[in-house]
């Protein structure tokens, strides 16, 4: 319980709350879009670089298990999400696939928040975790977009959507950062370390402030999406997070690593997936998938999910 409160009172989580409050009181506070984009670029590069440097110190054998676990869950989670949405929630195929694509992919900010969370507890998660983020970003989207094509036997715009995901700015920055970090290694990385590591939490603070404002505008759509999707947006992450803890620890992750891993796997993408779904499944309703992944699952994970996964991880491996 204390760790939950600990998480709630961290600067970055409070920044998120401030963003929500600002919109609720109808403040004219407004982030210039270029600032939002610049911080995104910075954060993605920073975790890529940091992850690459760490990866350069990791023996391949240590990395193989978690990487396979990531791929496996990247395929499994969108299928679970689709099944629940289609057969329990009675969504049509298009919307069920569209939402499932988001839950198959990953929210980078949730990942970062989880990293910060366990670090604040004095733990050090595995350095290669950002690599897993990159691995997790794509397969979930592909699997979910394939579903309507397989079921309805339609030739879709899957290829276009795949290009969108693979060359999307978030993958390019994350993977580009990873490779650069891997190539330069710890010593040469020092020249940019102050910028990319020292400034990280502060940039994240600003980013969550903005995300809080965006989330607040999503909250207005909550009644539009219905009670089922609200429940879905909370329970499915818990389910996925639970699976991720078990599989992650089985693959060799530490308690801290499994906590972060669960946060990643349970999170819903809201940058890569929306763009891909908008192109491949234009008939899917953006209000449904954005509200559930950004308006429900994201704040749930930031405030309660991450500490919960930590408790679960402790329970299994503490």
């Amino acid at each position: 319980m204390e760790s939950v409160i600990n998480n709630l009172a961290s600067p970055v989580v409070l920044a998120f709350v401030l963003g929500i409050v600002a919109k609720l009181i109808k403040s004219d506070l407004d982030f210039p879009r270029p600032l939002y984009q610049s911080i995104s670029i910075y954060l993605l590069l920073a975790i890529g670089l940091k992850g690459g440097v760490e990866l350069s110190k990791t023996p391949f054998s240590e990395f193989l298990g978690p990487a396979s676990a990531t791929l496996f869950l990247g395929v499994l989670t969108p299928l679970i999400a689709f099944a629940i949405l289609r057969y329990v929630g009675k969504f049509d195929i298009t919307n069920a696939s569209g939402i499932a694509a988001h839950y198959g992919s990953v929210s980078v900010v949730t990942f970062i928040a989880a990293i910060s969370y366990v670090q604040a507890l004095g733990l050090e998660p595995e350095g290669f975790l950002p690599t897993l983020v990159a691995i997790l970003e794509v397969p979930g989207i592909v699997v979910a977009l394939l579903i309507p094509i397989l079921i309805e036997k339609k030739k879709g715009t899957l290829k276009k959507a795949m290009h969108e995901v693979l060359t999307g700015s978030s993958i390019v920055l994350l993977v580009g950062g990873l490779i650069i970090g891997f190539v330069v290694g710890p010593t040469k990385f020092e020249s940019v370390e102050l910028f990319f590591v020292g400034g990280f939490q502060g940039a994240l603070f600003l980013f969550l402030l903005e995300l809080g404002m965006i989330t607040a505008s999503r909250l207005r759509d909550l009644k539009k999406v219905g009670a089922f999707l609200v429940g879905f947006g909370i329970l499915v992450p818990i389910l996925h997070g639970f699976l991720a803890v078990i599989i992650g620890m089985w693959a060799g992750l530490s308690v801290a690593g499994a906590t972060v891993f669960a946060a990643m796997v349970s999170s819903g993408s809201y940058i890569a997936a929306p763009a891909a779904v908008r192109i491949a499944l234009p008939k899917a309703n953006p209000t449904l998938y954005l509200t559930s992944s950004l308006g429900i699952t994201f704040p749930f994970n930031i405030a309660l999910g991450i500490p919960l996964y930590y408790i679960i991880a402790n329970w299994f491996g503490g």
Partner: protein
Amino acid sequence: MSLVNLKLVTIVSERILKTQMVEHIVECGAKGYTMLEATGEGSRGIRASEFEGRNVKFEIIASSEVAEKIFQKIKSEYFENYAVIVYSQDVQVVRGDKYI
């Protein structure tokens, strides 16, 4: 000054369609276009492309034939699934023969 009567075609679309729109405009025979960033509201409320930068607005000086082609193209490709608005005006263009 001798002005040429041409059409000014305006398209407002989701930003996600930006690259495709440019391709269509050129394919339809336009000699150029001007693009501006815009926001907006319409029948469909918030855009999926909100994170990607909202709307783009294209302005194309072209002959009526090219204008008509652009209308057809956009109607057939996007009207069903995307937020797109298209309209046309008469304009008098200096050095207008450049744009035909």
